[in-house]
């Protein structure tokens, strides 16, 4: 069995631009001034989308009770979607005192008997890591007994952030699944999609295009993923990281071990989608494929342009302020620009160094990168005459006060903004926001305040 990944080693991961500037500080949240999830949540995000695997959370109820059925990751798996189920050992005082290993073993047995999953992922959490339950031993025993992969995931919350946890989740898949099975057939155009979770079906916006080009998605980590296919991931020709810097360490290790090169891209907005498709084709290094890809891009862009035409007039001259975090700081900006909307400012407070660099690139010299969006955004709206604020719910009042339209970008979305067609969804939502009188109506003074 593979040893537990070393936390320090992961933190010093050379491929992470975030870390170049901030070294180990990535791992030290400030008490009383921390937002954001724990490593366990990150691991959950990176592995939960395997709908044919059971995900068993070994810990007290906090970890799973509030987190199951939270993410709209979609799957085409015809069996029961285990992603949308919650399994937890829900340990009690007794387990804390006497150890929870037996309970864990019994729980795995129960799951195998009742749900017959392709694999079981077992997640350590703070309490079970602290009391020293030997996940590796339990998983090994269960694997032998039931003949399916039983994967220990060592990302208890206290080891760090969501990002670190996503890495640890990826590491677990690499250590226990990748390379344990051979694909039935191989093609020269086999790729793995890494870090695409198919939230709201984002991935299905572009996978039909890949298919049309003859590019085969051999496996994913983990959107619409299957255990059987991630086990064959070592035979891919290319790893494609979709908007997930935290998984760079994983692809670097796959390159070292299996010689699979990797590229990193995003499928958000028209330009990024086109660039992404082109980058995949070029990386696969086939001249004919590149030519076909360019033709497809041309066709798709023309088709999209046609459909966007009714929106263009409405969006002309419109300005937007964007207040979000992570890669959304630039990916949504890019999509807005594709729609002809000027992005006058974007918040970079919660963005990594490389996200900031990208934001600067997309917004140009005149765009404002807000370090303190809470206090800056109202002023910028005044100064630029912005028409739209895209932010989290907390900023709604700013929009009301400024009487401009508002879109909650942090709300769990129900529809996809990814790929070419996702841009149409975004355009429709923006149109609806701009035409909605509610922001002005609710801003009216009450009769007794006049």
């Amino acid at each position, binding site marked *: 069995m593979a040893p537990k990944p070393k936390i320090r080693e992961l933190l010093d991961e050379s491929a992470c631009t975030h870390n170049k500037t901030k070294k180990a500080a990535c791992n030290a949240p*400030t*008490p*009383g001034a921390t937002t954001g999830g724990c490593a366990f949540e990150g691991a959950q995000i990176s592995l939960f989308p395997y709908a044919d695997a059971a995900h068993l959370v070994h810990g007290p*109820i906090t970890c799973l009770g509030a987190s199951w059925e*939270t993410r709209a990751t979609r799957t085409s798996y015809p069996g029961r979607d285990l992603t949308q189920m919650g399994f*937890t050992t829900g340990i009690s005082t007794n387990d804390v005192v006497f150890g929870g290993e037996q309970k864990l073993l019994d729980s795995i047995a129960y799951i195998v008997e009742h749900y017959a999953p392709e694999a079981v992922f077992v997640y350590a959490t703070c*309490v079970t890591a*602290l009391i020293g339950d030997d996940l590796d031993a339990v998983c090994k025993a269960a694997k032998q007994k039931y003949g399916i992969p039983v994967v220990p995931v060592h990302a208890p919350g206290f*080891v760090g952030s969501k990002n670190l946890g996503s890495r640890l989740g990826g590491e677990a898949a690499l250590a226990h699944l990748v390379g344990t099975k051979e694909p039935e057939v191989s093609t020269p155009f086999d790729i793995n999609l890494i870090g695409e979770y198919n939230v709201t079906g984002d991935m299905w916006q572009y996978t039909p295009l890949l298919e049309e080009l003859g590019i085969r998605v051999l496996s994913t980590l983990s959107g619409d993923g299957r255990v059987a296919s991630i086990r064959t991931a070592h035979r891919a020709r290319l790893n494609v990281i979709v908007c997930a810097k935290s998984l760079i360490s994983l692809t670097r290790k796959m390159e070292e071990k299996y010689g699979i090169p990797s590229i990193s891209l995003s499928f958000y907005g028209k330009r990024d989608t086109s660039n992404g498709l082109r980058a995949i084709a070029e990386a696969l290094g086939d001249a004919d494929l590149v030519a076909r890809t360019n033709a497809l891009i041309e066709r798709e862009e023309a088709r999209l342009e046609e459909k966007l035409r009714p929106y263009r007039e409405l969006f002309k001259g419109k300005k937007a302020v964007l207040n979000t975090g992570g890669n959304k700081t630039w990916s949504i900006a890019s999509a807005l620009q594709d729609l002809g909307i000027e992005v006058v400012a974007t918040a970079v407070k919660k963005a990594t160094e490389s996200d900031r660099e990208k934001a600067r690139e997309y917004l140009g010299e005149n765009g404002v990168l807000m370090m303190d969006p809470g206090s800056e955004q109202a002023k910028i709206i005044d100064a630029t005459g912005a028409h739209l604020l895209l932010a989290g*719910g907390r900023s709604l009042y700013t929009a009301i006060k400024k009487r401009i339209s508002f879109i909650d970008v942090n709300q769990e979305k129900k529809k996809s903004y990814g790929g070419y067609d996702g841009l149409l969804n975004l355009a429709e939502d923006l149109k609806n926001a701009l035409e909605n009188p509610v922001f002005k109506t609710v801003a009216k003074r009450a009769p007794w305040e006049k």
Partner: protein
Amino acid sequence: MGEVIRKPIKPLQVNPIKLSQPMGATLAFLGIDKCMPLMHGGQGCASFTKVFMTRHFSEPIAIQTTAVTDVTAILDGGDYSIVEAIKNITKKASPSLIGLHTTGLPETKGDDIRGVAAKIDFPLVHVNTPDYEGGLESGWALAVKAIIEQLVEASEELDGNKLVLLPHVSLQPIEVEKLKEFIAGFGFEVLALPDLSTSLDGYLGEKQGSLSGGGISVEQIRALADAGLVLSVGDSMLGAAKALLEKNPAMRHHHFAHLSGLEATDALVERLLAETGFQKPPASVIRWRKRLQDAMLDSHFSLGQTRFAVAAEPDQLAGVCASLREAGGRVRLAIATVDSPQLVKIPAEKVLVGDLEDAENLQDDYDLIVGNFHAEALAHRFHKGLVVRGFPNWEQIGNQLKNDVLYEGGAYFLFEAANVAEAMRAATHHGRD
């Protein structure tokens, strides 16, 4: 009363409805004005809680974490992370109170939060709420008890007009408000502890968002012990009521297992009449009782042919089941998140401490399920009617204004349940055509 099964029949929880103690404590602290709930544990617990509450109430939620790491988990006994957290919180905001509550992690390593709290020179209430014990309801109740023990000043005075209401965790903001107004109608000045009715009721205001806004004030809490009457609602609140009575044994206390439906509301009115010496309640109360009677008759035909499963926190479970049963609903299955003295009183054929997998395994027994939004998948799978109640409900908006209590809320609830049952039957018949 039917069979009560308290011991889980399997080693794990599958599709749990249970939520954690620290989350309940957080919610209690959010019912105090300008409070900062501080969860002592790994950062994820607070993050999950924040997202959870934000999505349920559609409101910004104030919460902070001591962000215990692998390093502090071993080296720190809470001294560093708690003190540091308070330092950082007060740098940016000026809370009236810090609500320190634990999770399983610091409890496992044995942090002495009482000892740490004693060294902190800032208004603070501390409470032990390990998440490997109890659940949402007990976490809320423990926090309220701690708030009372640590803040309320003992008194020998009595203000006959003043009444303290101790609501259980599942009462939504509007329900707390309705209870306050109902009791105020009898001439009382009502203070609810905690009071979500003015903090998480969903109102448009210029919110800072960094602290809770609205709710009962710390000053009001300190001065609660001169109230003539204490009303506790939900068996989980008995401990808190007892703690309050210790601050002034002269206070009179009335307890209600729940305040849903005709009989329970009648019991409350009877008490209030006896306490005030009034002959009659306010006219609107009389009117609403008649409306509820009518609602019961209007809905009884539908409810009487419907078999229900209800899944909820024990105190809410008791109320929902009573309300359905007295109008003829056949409650076949009641699933509680955790054990509680309430369970033996619930008018259901089978009461069990369990999860939604249990509800799924017994799906032949009922037609309509009342439960949190996780029950939606189950209802969909097996073509059951669904009435969404309890935490969390992320699929619908307006949770904070859903009112099921007293005569008024009871009427609305029965209408909703009966309408869902009818729609379900219509859909099934349609399917068969």
